[in-house]
């Protein structure tokens, strides 16, 4: 290999690995130039708080995508968990906020387990299985109050989404905790190694003695738990249960994962990439909001950003 081609390959490799990170930095610089308040503490806190909530979905989605699957029901599970936790977090119920939170997260766990069993043991394609549970979860969301919003949540519960410990918002603390656990799971345990193996080559993983079905099933449970956790936090933040929570969030979650360089084919990806993806989407959304760019135009811009990021990543594919 002559040095020229080697350099070219290195440049491609660099663009593919750090392209999104560089994009994120550029984005922050541009928005800061356009609006000096962008890098103000209040705005940073706001970005991190929102990124923490939406990011939980993307973290769960990363596990699923690494096995070569997809979870379309994350947004619906988020909404469902939000509604059910709100129902039990009403001041009038008199329950501890933790109980309400656990019930919400429990909903996600059950739906996630249902997804996992469908995809791994019953061999329903992930796209179809989770599309089905998306509909089921939406139905469950409407069922509990016949689609009416749930106001009057307890202070303890509202604190989960709106409160802070010192200067740091509670959602950010939760996210940090989740991230630490997920980093250890994915990179320091057998379980994490097996996730990559299953996504990289299902047959070889099976022959290597891995219980591939259990691994596949479990990632949907993780996705369900994290999505519902996000739903509960989001509900606490907006201080009432609304049925539209989480609508369309699955697309953002998938976008964050692929921007981070995780391959939809499975077996290849990185958790820190997803974090970059989460921040990139959130910084973009908040920045465009501050500039008063219409929601419709934002959708168009986001679409191009996702395609561009994945294109960059594809450079090193050959």
């Amino acid at each position, binding site marked *: 290999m002559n040095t020229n081609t080697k350099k070219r390959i290195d440049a491609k490799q660099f663009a593919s690995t750090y392209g999104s990170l560089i994009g994120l930095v550029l984005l922050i610089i541009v928005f800061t130039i356009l609006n000096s308040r962008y890098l103000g503490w209040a705005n940073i806190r706001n970005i991190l708080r929102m990124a923490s909530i939406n990011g939980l979905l993307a973290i769960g989605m990363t596990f699923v995508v690494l096995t070569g699957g997809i979870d379309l029901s994350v947004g619906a599970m988020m909404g469902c968990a939000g509604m059910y936790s709100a129902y039990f977090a009403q001041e009038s119920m008199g329950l501890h906020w933790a109980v309400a939170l656990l019930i919400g997260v429990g909903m996600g766990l059950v739906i996630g387990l249902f997804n996992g069993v469908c995809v791994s043991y019953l061999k329903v394609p992930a796209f179809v299985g989770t599309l089905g549970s998306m509909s089921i979860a939406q139905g469950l969301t409407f069922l509990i109050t016949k689609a009416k919003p749930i106001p009057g949540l307890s202070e303890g519960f509202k604190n989960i989404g709106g409160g802070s410990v010192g200067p740091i918002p509670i959602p950010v603390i939760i996210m940090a905790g989740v991230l630490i656990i997920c980093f*250890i799971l994915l990179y*320091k*345990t*057998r379980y994490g*190694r*097996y996730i*990559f*193996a299953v996504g*990289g*080559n299902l*047959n*070889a*993983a*099976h*022959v*290597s*003695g*891995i*219980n591939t079905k259990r691994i596949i099933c479990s990632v949907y449970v993780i996705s369900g738990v994290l999505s519902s956790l996000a739903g509960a936090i989001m509900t606490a933040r907006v201080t009432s249960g609304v049925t539209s929570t989480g609508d369309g969030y699955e697309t953002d979650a998938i976008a964050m994962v692929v921007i981070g360089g995780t391959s939809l084919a499975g*077996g*290849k990806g990185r958790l820190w990439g997803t974090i970059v993806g989460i921040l990139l989407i959130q910084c973009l959304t908040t920045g465009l909001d501050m500039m008063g760019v219409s929601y419709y135009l934002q959708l168009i811009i986001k679409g191009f950003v996702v395609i561009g990021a994945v294109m960059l990543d594809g450079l090193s594919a050959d």
Partner: protein
Amino acid sequence: MSLIELKGIKKSFYGVEVLHGVDLTLRPGTVHALMGENGAGKSTLMKVIAGVHKCDEGTILMDGKEVRINSPSEAQSLGIAMIHQELSPVREMTVAENIFLGREPSRMGFIDYRKLYAQTSDLLEKLRIPINPKSKMKSLRVADQQMVEIAKAISQNARIVIMDEPTSAITDNEVDSLFAMIEDMKAHDVGIIYISHKMGEIFRIADDITVLRDGTLVNTWPASEVDNDTLIKQMVGRELKEQFPKVAAPIGETVLEVKNLSLTGQYEDISFELHRGEILGLVGLVGAGRTEVMRSIFGMTQPEKGEILLNGKPVHMKSPADAIKKGIAYVTEDRKGEGLILPMSVFKNTTLSALKDFVKTGIIQDVKESKAVDEQVKALRIKVNNLKLPVKSLSGGNQQKVVLAKWMITGPDIMIFDEPTRGIDVGAKAEIYKIMCDYVAQGHAIIMISSEMPEAMGMSDRIIVLSNHKCSGELDRQEFSQEAIVQMQFKYM
């Protein structure tokens, strides 16, 4: 005048020459049988004619004029049709759509379905194939799919039809109607190249017989001038040229015993014993059921009948994980499909099956893992610059060594090798043989499936032959002879 004439055809894959200058002449109105062992180069040669592979050197003459065949569609327009060994119908389409795929009768740009089905009906009727042209391909039995494939070749009005083991999946009745079709084609001056392992068929229909061995032409005879025994001798009659570092280890007690194992459609009534210190060769033609038996021993499939005893105790292998726990390792024949996680690093592939040994309170111990990997890399002399590179970046031989390392690290008592040196260069081959010998010398045991006769005979202490899903014989090392083994391979065909 010959229909097609091949002269000095050479073909290499990844720098390994598999055809070393082969000649072949097909006369119009005749059947030319092409014979040889697995890997002799028959299918490769035919794929050169059919435009699937391009030859590196040599000339192809049709009607005395040189032609170049660069793609299957060029072959088709030259009047060459091939019925492949592995069928590849479009399963969701109808029989008629499959037969006329890519050359559908059309009217004003639209497919003329009435004509399509009428033509197909005529064709199938003429060939006496009782299949509905409107049936979906997937609803047909394999034998019927095979007949459709044959009808497709005939419908192309080909002048040269290549049949690669066309009778491997069809019944005797269908063989008769296939042969009737062949007679009919011969009468129309079509030339047929017929690949088969079945001696009976060859002598029924062949006019000429060519034998290939190790990618070279042995000879071509008129069928009337050779007999069964001569052909077998010619197919295998080579000296054991390659070197095998076989060291006989002391044979110990029985470690694995298989009794009357059966699984419908895969293998029947298989029994054998495996002893410590032994390399047991498992030989047979492709499709004889060798791999299928091993998959059951490794827990990938469940036998319907029979028993597996490990160190004298009956065991039931529920899954590969279960088999690994019981000290069995399986180096599969499909390195890329079942052996390795290609996008994963060499390092992580190596420890994948033994990860639990490196875990303390749930966390993988990096230092311990690195040490174990380094030991294996050194012991097996895996050539790799950076253990973090994806395993797919290694050469075939080194990839195979990673597979071996992955299993060695689990500390197995029995290793099953399925075609352990397929597609590997000579140097790496010898190293893998050495690793196998060292392994059994430590009192372990190996079962080795091999389609390469010199390898099977050079490395095994004992050979079991499978023929058509059944055990057809067993030979001790001093009884090894290629003729005997090949006779056994054909015993139940």
